[in-house]
């Protein structure tokens, strides 16, 4: 468990480091030049929100989507990443209204709408948390190329023996107003840098 925890923390830390290193932001793709990555990540989805509503990717056309994958039982990556997301959107200010933050669970078995609704209260008020059945989540994870792997926690005294975690990709995805991919933001990127990147993509679209 310690080893797993260590690697969880390291995963958080590497993302943060890389994000922190991205200080020389380079600007969004220009409209004149087709972006070869535009269709490498992302795709259509129909999922269920934390309020129980059916949500489709097309509902967010005209806004940028800031997509983050995780799960509510996540011990390290998700609480931190979602806090950064929340603070960054606050830092962006009014322009942030053009961005729709989305959290997509990688653990649909446990992350039901009521569970997500409770979790959502800790983060940005406009954050929409999404779940679905296993097939739906598998499909969207595949579309975004998100690593997702369930593992059992080691059995300890008092444990039920079936507690598990989920290794998952920690990158944030910025999707354009047309729903296609724009850029990656490594998890743990400092709030100021996330805000800077988001402002630029909002301004360029």
């Amino acid at each position, binding site marked *: 468990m310690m080893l797993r925890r260590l*690697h969880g923390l390291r*995963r958080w830390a590497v993302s943060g480091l890389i994000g922190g290193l991205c200080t020389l932001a*380079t600007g969004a793709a220009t409209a004149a*030049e087709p972006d070869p990555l535009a269709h*490498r990540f992302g795709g259509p989805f129909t999922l269920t929100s934390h309020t129980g509503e059916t949500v489709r990717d097309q509902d967010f056309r005209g806004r940028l989507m800031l997509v983050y994958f995780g799960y509510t039982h996540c011990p390290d990556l998700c609480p931190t990443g979602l806090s950064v997301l929340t603070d960054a959107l606050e830092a962006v200010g009014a322009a942030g209204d053009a961005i729709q933050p989305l959290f997509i669970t990688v653990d649909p078995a446990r992350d039901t709408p009521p569970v997500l609704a409770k979790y959502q209260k800790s983060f940005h008020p406009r954050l929409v948390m999404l779940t679905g059945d296993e097939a739906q989540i598998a499909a969207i994870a595949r579309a975004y190329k998100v690593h997702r792997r369930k593992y059992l926690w080691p059995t300890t005294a008092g444990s039920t023996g079936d507690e598990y975690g989920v290794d998952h990709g920690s*990158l944030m995805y910025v999707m354009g107003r047309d729903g296609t991919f724009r850029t990656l933001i490594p998890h743990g990127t400092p709030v100021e840098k996330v805000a800077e*990147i988001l402002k630029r993509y909002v301004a360029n679209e």
Partner: protein
Amino acid sequence: MAKFAKLGLLTSVLLGSAMPTVAAERIQVTGEIVDTWCSITGIMFAYGTAHHQCAVWCAAGGIPVSIKSADGTFYMVLKIEDDATSVANPTILKVQTHNVTVDGELHKRDGVNYLFVSKVADDKGIVNMTHDDYGVVPFGN
């Protein structure tokens, strides 16, 4: 201060060009597949056989690996060969720590070199035998 200077150096290594680049560039890169976190931070010795165990754990856990070329540039691998289902592709475990030559697409996006490997053109295996000097890092000798 020294820590910040080191980070600055590492930053310049990782970032490569800071100019906006949208078009993909076909490149061939030769270098060691490394644990991005440990190698960039310098938090521990993170190359070769000494760090292989740790690097495998990181890759399995979803940390994107990088290829560190001879000139010190880091290329974060987002895809390797045919398997495009995951950014943190478990396939990488088979070649973790190896010295490889890969063909692929380079995409520079917001300051990071991302590499989509289309082919591992050459794989010399693990050639950086560092465990005699460093033991097993970080889990002790």
